[in-house]
């Protein structure tokens, strides 16, 4: 199918359910789809294709939205316009097809298929169905935040620095009192710029895995508890 015919078919499919079926069937006839699918996905193509075709039928109206295309203004007889539309349509189909191949692949491995409980599942007509927020702007956020700041950072920073009840300093591995939660919080959170765990491991001359474990399993839970307490004050 040439670019102009495909472009016209997409334009028609946006308004005509019969044409959207024809468009879905045409996916199998577009040589780029198989060519760009990649060898890793090829074994799952035949099984995934019917699902992809259904998805395309259901969600064709999302294609121009997702690529910000004003299909009403596209002149399918203009070779450049129709070639561009073809490329983006194939990109869109390839995402869906790869996703469906991925599902087939997972199913074949006897992995439980992950079913999202969100509204973004296949079969819904798009990426988001929640109520959108049309009037929020970057400048608007700034004005909003002028009124809403709760200064949690300052409170926690002061707590970490003073550690008035020694809760942080007393939390360390038995064989290494220097690896306590206060020093970790100071280095990983308060220092500018903060160290990452690899750098902290180097600085304290301890294995990175130890830093990772202490931080995740001891220090962060303490800090979250302290933050909650400070918030309640």
């Amino acid at each position, binding site marked *: 199918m040439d670019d102009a015919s495909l472009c016209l078919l997409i334009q028609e499919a946006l308004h005509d359910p019969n044409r959207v079926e024809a468009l879905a069937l045409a996916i199998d006839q577009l040589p780029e789809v198989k060519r760009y699918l990649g060898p890793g996905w090829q074994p799952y193509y035949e099984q995934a294709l019917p699902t992809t075709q259904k998805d395309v039928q259901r969600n064709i109206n999302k294609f121009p939205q997702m690529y910000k295309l004003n299909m009403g203004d596209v002149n399918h007889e203009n070779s450049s316009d129709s070639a561009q539309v073809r490329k983006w349509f194939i990109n869109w189909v390839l995402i869906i097809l790869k996703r469906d191949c991925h599902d087939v692949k997972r199913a074949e491995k006897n992995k439980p298929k992950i079913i999202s409980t969100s509204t973004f*599942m296949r079969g819904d007509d798009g990426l988001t169905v929640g109520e959108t927020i049309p009037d929020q702007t970057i400048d608007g956020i700034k004005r909003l935040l002028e009124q809403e700041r709760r200064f949690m950072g300052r409170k926690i920073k002061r707590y970490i620095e003073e550690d008035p009840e020694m809760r942080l300093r007393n939390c360390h591995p038995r064989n290494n009192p220097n690896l306590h939660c206060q020093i970790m919080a100071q280095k990983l959170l308060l220092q500018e710029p903060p160290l990452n765990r690899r750098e902290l491991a180097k600085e304290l001359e301890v294995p990175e*895995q130890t830093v990772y474990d202490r931080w995740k399993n001891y220090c962060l839970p303490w800090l979250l508890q302290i933050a909650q307490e400070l918030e309640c004050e």
Partner: protein
Amino acid sequence: MNTVDNHNLTISLTKENHAVARQFAGEQDTVEKGEKVYLNTLAVYAVENFVQWLNIKTDLAAGDSWNSVIRLFNDVADLVIPNLGKLECRPVLPRETVITLPPEVTEDRICYIAVQFQEELNEVQLLGFMPALDPEEPLSQIEISNLQPIENLIDHLDRLESAQDFLYSDDEVAIKVRKRLNTESFSEIVAQIERIVRTCKPYNWRYAGGDFLANYVNSEQGIAFRSPAYRSERDESNRSPNSDLQDLAEKLLDKLSEIWGIQNEEEEMIDNSASHPAPEIPQDFVLSESWIDLTEWFQNPESLPRYNFKTLESFLLEQKESLVFRFATTPRSRNAATEDSVANITGVQKIQLQEHALALAVCLQLETDHKTDVLLRLYPAGDNTCLPSGLQLIVIDSESGDIFLEAQARSADNWIQLEFRGEPGERFSVKVALGDLSVTDNFVI
């Protein structure tokens, strides 16, 4: 065609997304930090939205960005994919051309995704992604022009998933890896092994892989080594464990490259261009699709950064230490001396083809007969003074799709160039290719 100028994948944001972003932002001490947290939260939601559409499970609450203490102090926008790792979702503000990476996000990430915001926050665009970076050489920013198409994210995630599956399998190599390495999770190991396969030549896999695995190895005393200080002590005292690790790394990389469908034959070790896995969609298929309007360059040179180009002057200022550009001036058209030029301008774009940093200079000369002389010159822009052998510079007729002009670098070329003339409205594409990798820019005169 103005209808398809803005072609990146667009994701809508909901009121609920904004409500959470507002809550997180309100906890911060300053408006600036609050704004950052607000955008980080929306960026994470946008990527979550996309990843869930791919039927891939996510765990928002497990990320640092959802941890109320960490986000007070760190600039984080991570999204956890259970058993696979963290995606870092970096906001890109209007007119920005790079994503910034604060130190706290330079480790423990399986990829970085650029999320473009406009002034209105009801939707964002996903500009592309960059797989895991080398934690030993962290970057502070990534050029958006160097990102891989977001459409290929699922290929990347599938690769990592296949590698994880392998590492938990009953394969002899996988069992040995599990036995030797001291780690709770294979996420970072898999992401870094994938980076080594992607960025190193096959003959280096053994050494790069061995060095990397040494960070996770159990010592004889049962201590886990992950810092270079420990590594060097061990290396000096006993060479054989490292050699064993190199053997293990080589076997592991061979297995994974086989699973990922990457050829690793002896002859490819000689061929530079074949040493990298071919992307499943050629990069030029989805990169740089927008048309770069060259008439706008003449009218408004400040428009160049919008197309990821710099003026020659600003580019040379950045390159003053570079030997290649030490004596550089505007490349001159062969016909320049004999023709009447009305105006001229040069734009330079940095291109990264795997480890090869390149600079493409597009020199335009508007002639009195309204035709434009276009001179394209390709330079090395990294430490090398020569272009990689076999590198191609190709001009494609956008109407027919046919190759119009072509040049190829030999072993010691400092630059290659192509020159032609075009009329207003004519379209052409410039493709820079090395083996299976290529980057294409589309221009209209």
